[in-house]
Structure formats: C-alpha cells, structure tokens
C-alpha cells in the first residue's frame, strides 16, 4: 500500500517510473504488451518497404529507403530493450511474434504494390504513428519515454521523406501522379484506423490515460491527424478520398464520413491480405538465422572460457 502510494504520487507529479521502482503488476503487464507490440510493429513494418529497396527508381531514393528501413530495425531494438527492463527477454518476445501470440500494428498487413506506397506509408502511416507517439515521449515509464523521444525524431524525418516522394510523383508524369493518388486512396482510411476504435468503444484507454501511458483519446488524435493532413494534401495536389471531409466551425472539429470498421476488423482478425505473409517472412528469417545465433553464442562462450583460463 505504501509502495502503491509512492507509485501514485510519481504518476500524479508527472515524474517517471524507472525500472528499479516498484510498480503495480497490471501497469507492468500493460507496458510490456504495449512496448513489445510497438517493437513488433517496427520489425514487421520493415517488410512492406523493404520490398522496394531492390527496385527503388533512383540511387538517391534507394539510399533514403534503405536508411529508413534500417532505422526501423533500430527502433525495434530500442523498444525491445525498453521492454526487457520490465523483465521479458527478446527471445520470448520474438517467439510471441512468430507464433502470433503478440500483435503488431494491423496497418502492415496491406501489400505495397507500387513505389508510391513508399510515399503514402511515410506520409500517412508514419504521420499517424507520430501523432500517436509524440505524447508517448512523456509516457510515465522512463525507458519507454526516452526511447520514444529518439524514435519520434526519426519518424518525423521519415514522414517528410514520404511527403517528398509523393510530391515528386504528383508533379511528375500523369502516370506518376495517378500512382500517387492511388496510393493515397488505398492508405488514407487504414491510416485513420491506426488510432483505434472510437472512444466510446475503446475499453483499455481509460486506465492507460489514468496511468499516463496514454495522454489523448483515439478520436482526439484522429482529429489532430486529419487537421495536419488537409493542408499538406493541398500542397501535394492530391485528394483525400473522403467526399464528406470538411471543417465544422460549430463543433470545432473535422466532419468526416463514418469509418467502415468492417475491413479493419477483418484485418485485425487475421484476414487481411498479407497477415500470413508477414509472419511467414519473420519466422523464416528467425529460423534460418538460428544456426548463426548459435554459432555466435558458442564462439562467445569459448572466448570467455579462454579468458577465464588465462586469468
């Protein structure tokens, strides 16, 4: 009870919980779930874009894309490290991922059939991720908050690069313009769904907000995101695929079409286009690398034994 009181006080004072601090079991579990899910999303998120590294249409774009996908591996690493401070191992998390016991962001279950998807993912998916993540930089758990600071900085760089890809395409040949519009059409709604179900149907949110892991509601974040997109779409010369989208002076909100959650729920239930492919890819990489990890461990062990002998 005393511990609980101290924990509550830290949270109340907007200070940070550190790995050595006592924390309620539910808090720890929530964090592990959220951080590892976030890490898995970075790792699975390497695939849809990794798919275009070999075909990037200019060497400059190839370099930028390679660096981006590599950054995602880095984000995965920080986040796994943050989760490890809560007492779960990377192996355990990997195992949960490849056996589908842990989730990752559903957005990565869509394929990337064209180069313009590299732009749309950067602009819309990374954009939505940033809106979700910027508040997490102040998350009450220290290692998570600090990882997010670093990640957010890189993500906004990625978003700008996505925007640039789309701008170049939109102003390019008619075929390129069409490619860009098509990608925005395909990614717009899924990116809005990244903020999760409407507030009145989101059961976990209240507790997370009380714990200051989460600081804004799903709908608040979605509104903020749309508000950011509208002027940018104008600059791009691309249309957001919602005929009902307009600013409502009275409510001080963006009016928009009702989101059709049917598809989202299908993807979430494992019936998106690429769910199976994503897990297969990750599992194969993991399993085909097993002998390498074993070799590295065996070698390290031998080296350590030699050093002990020498000492």
């Amino acid at each position, binding site marked *: 009870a005393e511990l609980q009181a101290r924990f509550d006080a830290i949270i109340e004072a907007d200070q940070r919980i550190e790995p050595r601090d006592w924390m309620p079991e539910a808090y720890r579990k929530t964090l592990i779930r959220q951080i590892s899910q976030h890490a898995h999303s970075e790792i699975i998120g390497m695939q849809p874009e990794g798919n275009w590294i070999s075909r990037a249409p200019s*060497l400059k774009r190839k370099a930028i894309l*390679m660096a981006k996908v590599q950054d995602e591996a880095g984000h995965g690493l920080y986040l796994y490290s943050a989760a490890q401070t809560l007492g779960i191992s990377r192996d355990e998390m990997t195992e949960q991922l490849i056996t589908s016991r842990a989730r990752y962001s559903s957005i990565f279950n869509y394929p990337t059939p064209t180069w313009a998807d590299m732009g749309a993912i950067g602009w819309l998916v990374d954009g939505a991720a940033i809106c979700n993540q910027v508040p997490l930089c102040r998350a009450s758990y220290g290692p998570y908050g600090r990882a997010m600071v670093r990640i957010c900085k890189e993500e906004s760089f990625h978003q700008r690069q996505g925007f640039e890809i789309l701008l170049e395409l939109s102003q390019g040949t008619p075929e390129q313009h069409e490619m860009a519009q098509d990608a925005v059409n395909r990614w717009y709604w899924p990116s809005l769904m990244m903020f999760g179900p409407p507030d009145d149907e989101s059961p976990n949110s209240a507790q997370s907000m009380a714990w200051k892991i989460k600081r804004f509601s799903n709908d608040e974040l979605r509104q903020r995101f749309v508000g950011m997109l509208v002027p940018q779409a104008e600059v791009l010369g691309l249309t957001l695929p919602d005929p009902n989208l307009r600013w409502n002076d009275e409510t001080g909100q963006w009016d928009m079409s009702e989101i059709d959650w049917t598809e989202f729920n299908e993807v979430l239930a494992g019936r998106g286009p690429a769910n199976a492919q994503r897990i297969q890819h990750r599992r*194969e990489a993991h399993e085909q690398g097993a002998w390498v990890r074993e070799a590295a461990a065996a070698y390290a062990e031998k080296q350590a034994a030699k050093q002990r002998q020498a000492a």
Partner: protein
Amino acid sequence: SPDVAEYAMRLGDDALILSQRLGWWISRAPELEEDMALGNIALDLLGHARSLLHYAGTATGRSEDDLAYWRDEHEFRCAWLFEQPNGDFAHTIARGLIAAIYMQELYTALSASTDASLAAIAAKSVKEVAYHRDHAVQWTLRLAGGTEESRARMLVALTDTWPYIDELFRDDELHERLGDAAPLPSSLRAGFDEIWSAVLAEAEIAEADFVNPKIGQSSGGGRFGNHSTHLGPLLAEMQVLARRHPGATW
C-alpha cells in the same frame, strides 16, 4: 578522361552491385543487429557507388542514375565476386570478407591517386571499408570457431567464393594507361594475401580445408562486360521501375 571514367565505373559497379545484394538482408538477417550492420554496409557501398558513378558520368554527360538504370548487362563492369548470390549467411560473409580486404587495399592506395576526385572518394571510403572488413573478420571467426555446423557452412562458403579472388587483381591495358591515377591491381595482391592469410590462420582454416583441387580461379570477365548468369536477373529487378517510366524523375 575516358580512361578515368571507365576506371571509376568499374569501382562504382562493384560497390553498386554488392550493395544491391546486401540490401536483400534488411528484414531477413539472423538478428536485428545484423539487419542494421548489413544495412549500414549496403548504405556505405551505395554511397561509394554514387560518388564513383557520378564521377564516371561526367565524362559523357550521364548521371549516376543514367549509369545505374539505363545500361544493359554487357555495359556493366563489376567483377564476378560482387555478383555472386547471397547464399546463406556464411556465403554473404565470405564474399564480404574478400570484398572488404580488397577494397581496403584498393582505397588505401587510391588515396594517393594523381586524380584528385578519385583520391578524395577513396580517402572517404577507406574509413568505412575498414568497418566492413572488421565486420566480416569478426563473423568469419565466429562462424569458423562457433558450432560444427557453422564451421562446415563457412568452409563451403569459402569453397564457393574463393574462385572469384584472382579477377580482382588482374592488370589490363586500362591500368597501364592510367599510370599514377590508379594502382595496378596486381600491386594490391601482396597486401590482400597478408590479411587474408592472417584471418584464415586466426580462424584455424587451411586452404586445403576448402579449396577444391579440381576448381581453380574463375576467368571471370566482368571488367569487359562478360558476366556470370547471376547479374541478369539482378539488373532486371533493380532497373524495372526506372525503365518503365523513361524520362521521369523521382
């Protein structure tokens, strides 16, 4: 001069094609740290390729992208080593080891080129290549000294990759014409052999452990546009989008 351009193109193609191969590993490496490390190496090499191809293109008014995307297979000048498939992780390491030892010798010598641009590119690249070499050496030691399986795989990888060493060190008329603008490939061989032997020795590998006595050094032919059968499909994939949209910018 056209000779310097041709020379820069050879080096640029080596770096470009190896980078293209390594890019495949990003999202497929044995551990996340390797997704990052191999990605880093691929990025460095792509940077070298861009500098070299940009420079090579100035002679004929072509951009780095003109050279990367609009040349056909027989116009590429990479050596066979760099075209070899990734294979398993051991094959990638064996290829990377040979490539990095070679490149470090090359860029070290090329830093003293009388051609200021080549010298500058080489001086910048040599630092990065030192990291690539260290990465490959460390993994060679780990795989050779790890488990029985990893050692066996490392030896097979050396068997398959070793035949592509000689091509890197063959002098031809271009080198003679270049004079002090570039080192003779053959002059780099002693330095290569020294490091190569030292790494194998530390990994406790003798040449007899992996050399198939019936298979010698490949005659290759990449410097003259004669490539292994692996390059064609690589280029088909690399160039497909750019070629689908002639004249477009990205």
